[in-house]
């Protein structure tokens, strides 16, 4: 019991700085749900044959540094939502991040053998990562009147959005008498849509204290997109161009997921995986919007004979920047994710897990941590997971997967309390799916899991 408490305490400490979309809770469904191979390729499904119902496996996660009620605020006395930059500013930190991850498992076919497992899968995924500094929100909320005579620096602003589909195969094999399991997946990733700002983009605006003239500085002011012109201006293209593009295009690359799990002791298992190793070269439908590095001062316009002042102001500012649009291919790395976990099995039915997650985005690797507990029951596996993000928001996750028969239902959430006043949370996520499972436990040895209570 003491060991249990120690492990739980250790897990809770680790959650103190949890960040980014880790799908910790979904991870805990492990061998029971074959789609967890997208997080850990070394998982071997319990069932011999697995078929995911097409389109019936979806997941989404939205996570930000503000609560939902900050984004969808309600003015005093109103029941309707609005987006109020003042509220968002109040919630803003020095650096703020928001990310969205949407996955749809279109197809998954798994087959388990004595020595491992094979899988064939197809997914559609989309990710959006946004990072902005407090000063950008300050500008949006209050304009620049509160910062006259100083420079507002927007250099921390980052944006990257990707949408792609992936088709691949996976293979998992046991070694060392099943103490070591290594898995890998190779997949063809086809980029569909992309939008990003240069990771080194810097921008600033300073307002002169006397005449309010703006000095606007831009460095590395470039943005890349792919597929968006086709999406937005579809009418300018021939029929079926968009459809053909979505089906197959040249923004294709080979990517890998690899993972391993090792049974250190009978009751202790460690795992590691790295997913989405690869780089997409966007060669079809690329667009590059580039602005010359420079600092310009806008002092207004010549008022003599001024007509159509709106256009004149716009033209005056634009004329100070030299920009161009090119169609050069560019590369973006997939947002690589990595998991490291250690699981302690307290008997056959209880598992405590401490895990770490990292995700690379904007050239930085961010780490998250979690601690969880899962209980295997006769017909279900259920689990609880705790996380505390940024020291302010404690999330309790839960997961559930049926283990009844050929039809499997699963649901996992890192923040299971979100339905109780969801406006107070900054993280919304779920994984849900239906699978057809056959040959349950056919290759599973009786003593595969050690019951620690019996030791």
């Amino acid at each position, binding site marked *: 019991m003491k060991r249990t408490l120690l492990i739980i305490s250790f897990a809770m400490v680790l959650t103190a700085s949890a960040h980014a979309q880790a799908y910790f809770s979904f991870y805990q469904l492990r061998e029971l749900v074959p789609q967890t191979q997208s997080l850990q390729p070394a998982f071997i499904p319990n069932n011999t044959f697995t078929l995911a119902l097409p389109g019936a496996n979806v997941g989404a996660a939205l996570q930000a540094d503000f609560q939902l009620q900050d984004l969808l605020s309600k003015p005093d006395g109103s029941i309707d939502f609005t987006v109020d930059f003042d509220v968002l500013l109040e919630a803003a930190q020095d650096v703020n991040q928001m990310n969205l991850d949407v996955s749809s498992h279109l197809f998954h076919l798994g087959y388990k053998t004595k020595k491992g497992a094979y899988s064939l899968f197809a997914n559609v995924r989309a990710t959006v990562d946004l990072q902005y500094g407090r000063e950008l929100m300050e500008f949006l909320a209050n*304009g*620049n009147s509160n910062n006259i005579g100083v420079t507002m620096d927007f250099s921390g602003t980052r944006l990257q959005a990707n949408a792609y589909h992936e088709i691949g195969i996976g293979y998992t094999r046991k070694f060392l008498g099943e103490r070591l399991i290594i898995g890998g997946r190779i997949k063809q990733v086809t980029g569909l849509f992309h939008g990003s700002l240069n990771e080194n983009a810097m921008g600033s605006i300073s307002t*002169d204290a006397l*005449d309010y003239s703006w000095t606007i500085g831009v460095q590395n002011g470039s943005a890349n997109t792919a597929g968006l012109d086709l999406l937005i201006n579809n009418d300018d293209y021939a029929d079926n161009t968009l459809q053909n593009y979505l089906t197959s295009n040249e923004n294709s690359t080979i990517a890998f997921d690899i993972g391993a799990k090792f049974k250190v002791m009978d009751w202790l298992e460690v795992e590691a995986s790295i997913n989405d190793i690869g780089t997409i070269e966007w060669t079809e439908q690329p667009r590059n919007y580039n602005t010359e590095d420079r600092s310009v001062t*806008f002092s*207004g316009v010549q008022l003599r004979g001024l007509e159509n002042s709106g256009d004149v102001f716009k033209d005056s500012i634009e004329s100070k920047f030299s920009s161009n649009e090119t169609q050069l291919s560019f590369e973006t790395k997939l947002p690589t994710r990595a998991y490291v976990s250690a699981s302690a099995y307290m008997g056959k039915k209880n598992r405590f897990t401490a895990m770490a997650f990292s995700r690379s985005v904007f050239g930085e690797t961010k780490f998250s941590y979690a601690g969880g507990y899962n209980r295997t029951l006769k017909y279900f596996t259920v689990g609880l997971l705790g996380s505390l993000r940024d020291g302010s928001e404690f999330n309790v996750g839960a997961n559930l997967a049926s283990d009844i028969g050929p039809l499997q239902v699963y649901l996992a959430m890192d923040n299971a309390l979100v*339905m109780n006043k969801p*406006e107070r949370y900054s993280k919304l996520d779920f994984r849900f799916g239906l699978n057809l499972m056959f040959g349950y436990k056919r290759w599973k040895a009786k003593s595969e899991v050690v019951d620690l209570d019996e030791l």
Partner: protein
Amino acid sequence: MKRGLLKNFLALMIVFGMLSACNLDYFRDAEFGDFVWDPSLAVPIGEISYSIEELFDELNDAGASVGTNNDNIVTLSYTEALQSQTASAFLAVLDQSFASGIQSGVDINSPGVSSTIDVQETFEYDLSQRSGELYDSIFFSGGDFDVSFASQLGADVDFTMTVNSLRERSTGNPLVITGSLTQGSPNFNANNSLADFDGIFVEDALGNATSNKVLVEMAYTINVTPTTVISSTDRVNFTIGLTNAEFQTVYGDVGTGGLDVNFQVVNLDFFRNFDATGIRFSEPVFSFVFDNGFGFPLGIDFRNISSIGSEGQIVDLTGTAIDNPTIVAAPTTENVGGVVQSTLELNSTNSNIADLLAVQPRKVIMEVNAESNPTGTNQYNFVDVNSLLDVSVNVDIPLIMNVDNLIAEEFMDFDNGGDLEEARRLVFRVIADNELPIGGDIELEFQDAQGAVVHTVSERPVFSGAPVGSDGRTTEATVTTADIEFSNEEIRAIEGATRVRIIARLATTNATSGDVVRFFSDYELKLRLAAQADVEIGVSGN
């Protein structure tokens, strides 16, 4: 088995309990309302620069032109034209006729033989004039020369009239009229167009040089028959007449006579922008430019030059410049058709012209008399049909002045009310970089279409006069910042305004000390406009 089922059930209940502990009150009945963006933006609007010329062009209602004088000082100029009567109105050849007769001088009573008797006589007439003109020659361009003859003689007569004063222009020969007067047809009439002749009136019948004389030689031959009876007193009468005579050029002495010059009122619209007092120009100049096409000098008498001030006060022009008639030179006979220009300048040293402008006159009245040969005929005169006296008046007001507490006002259309809909608070900042030696406090009155004041921005300094150095030029630009704030209520008030009355209280540098400043043309007033705007931009969410 039962224990296992219970555990399954409890575990499920815990998980579903967590999931089902729903409280979605925040989202109940909620829709996306209007998105409201309410930043406060400090923006540079722009700048506008005024040179002195442009600034006073703005104040001027187009009556004046704004330029620079030789010292590069900005000058307001008004030009008005006065014109004399035409030459034909000034000088006219009167309709006139001369009648004479020549007696036969012989008594004949049936002489029984045929013979001829010649009779001849030269006649001298004075041209009739309106006054004391003495014409030497008239180059006619129209009119009639009529001649009639009547014989009392009891015989046929053959006559020849030579009009020495009318020379055929093409040949130079005098006009000769011949004819016969019979007993059956004793009368004879003739008509000639004067347009073909030049009148020469410079000799008398004795060949002496004179003026204004018309010479006619009359000669006739009496054809005597054996039965002719003639008394020595029987006459052949004739009458010559000039009617509707028109001239191209007249030479001689036109004498002393008045030339009517039209009355003129100069509207000094510039001053309409200002209040009654507070501005004094130091060196204004009225320049009268006379373009004289008449062939005689003119004496100019400024019968009346006076200004009417903004409050109706009248100031008459006085001074040495107008005490004596001004002599305007004339072209000589070698320059018929040309003009000679003379200029008379009225300035602060020879007149009280500064006083005329000190009342900020709306109008200046100018009435001028012109008189020919004011000092006698010192120059051979001529009048050409195209001769004219043009008088142009240039009112030049160099901006060398003292302005002290001068109130100026200007109206400006205001059609930006619709643009203020999303503004909740505005602070307009006016930054004046002023090289001019004049400063101003500004008050703004926003008025609606009926002229009612809907909001007033109280008077405040907007630009300050630049300091003046020893050379009369400003030494540096002064920078003045003025903020004009509008609250939400005030913005709502001016949304309905249609025009702005701008009231400026102006003073030149060191005006209270009486200093006079000069406005050089390279001075500039640069206004930079900026604004802090608290806006509320709403986008409907439904």
